[in-house]
């Protein structure tokens, strides 16, 4: 029986080395391309006929749009709505990536620290740029909140810096841990189905239930990731 961790192995599809750096097109990259293409295709298909009174197909993306719109509005206020497109893309990319990973023989790129970590760092840099643009030098107040005496600055500034830098790390670990655990569990239960022979139908029932649960977790984790990015964006836009 193969190892339950085998599914997370990155294998190059098209080998490519540039100046000693491996920039091969891997199965992870393929999964990303497929999920991105799937988002664009599904949205293009559903929004083919655009009318003021939406039909069923059109109301699905509209409901999603409104959902994220209200989320940003309630966590960052009106000022955050300018960055709607970024947050919306983030949500769709992670949600579709998570769900895509549940298909047999596919690859879950959201279970890799490298992929999600880069996304989180991107979100952090984006938040910093937005914060600096909105508050200019006042953004430096993030590192020394109002009401703290300057004598404490040598202690508070490093603490606030670590606090800021730990945000993308905690975002990444949460998503990656949830995805990895779910997939390992599915694989191990799958091994039981084969190993138990005639009694294999018992783990199959569990498997079916866990697949539904994993589908829920996949969307929930994308939602939590988006909510927390919204909260961090709100923090960047206004002082504590």
């Amino acid at each position, binding site marked *: 029986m193969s190892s339950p961790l085998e599914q997370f192995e990155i294998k190059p599809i098209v080998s490519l080395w540039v100046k000693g750096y491996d920039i091969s097109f891997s199965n992870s990259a393929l999964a990303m391309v497929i999920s991105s293409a799937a988002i664009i295709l599904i949205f293009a298909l559903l929004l083919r006929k655009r009318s003021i009174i939406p039909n069923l197909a059109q109301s699905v993306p509209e409901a999603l749009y409104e959902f994220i719109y209200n989320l940003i509005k309630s966590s960052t206020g009106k000022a955050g709505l300018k960055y709607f497109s970024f947050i919306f893309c983030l949500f769709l990319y992670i949600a579709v990536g998570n769900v895509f990973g549940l298909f047999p023989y596919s690859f879950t790129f959201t279970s890799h620290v490298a992929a999600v970590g880069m996304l989180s760092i991107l979100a952090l840099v984006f938040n910093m740029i937005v914060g600096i643009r909105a508050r200019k030098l006042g953004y430096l107040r993030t590192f020394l909140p109002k009401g703290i005496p300057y004598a404490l600055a040598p202690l508070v500034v490093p603490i*606030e810096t670590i606090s800021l830098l730990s945000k993308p790390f905690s975002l990444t670990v949460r998503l990656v841990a949830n995805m990895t655990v779910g997939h390992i569990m599915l694989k191990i239960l799958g091994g039981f189905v084969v190993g138990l022979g005639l009694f294999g139908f018992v783990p199959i029932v569990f498997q079916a239930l866990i697949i539904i649960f994993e589908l829920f977790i996949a969307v*929930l984790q994308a939602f939590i990731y988006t909510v927390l990015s919204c909260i961090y964006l709100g923090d960047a836009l206004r002082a504590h």
Partner: protein
Amino acid sequence: MKKTDDIAKLEKRISAFKKNKEAQEQRGAQISPSTNAAKGFQMSIELVSAIAVGAAIGYVLDHIFGVSPVFLCVLTILGGAAGVLNMYRTAKAQDEGEN
């Protein structure tokens, strides 16, 4: 006579719908990551990640300045402080969301 009855009924339905919608909007404004288990998980991750990031920064600074393990010790402790601060802020945000 019948027409006014119909209009009164319609008005009732509209006002009921409006009330319902307002209540829904208020509920939608409170965003908190679902269950208590999720909250606990978030707290633990926040504490641990801050310590890990502090230690990592300390390790890198030690390598740059060649004063191992001064920065590692100091920044790990400060990371713990940052973790508690993160947890406190999350708890405060959740309290505000519930009230």
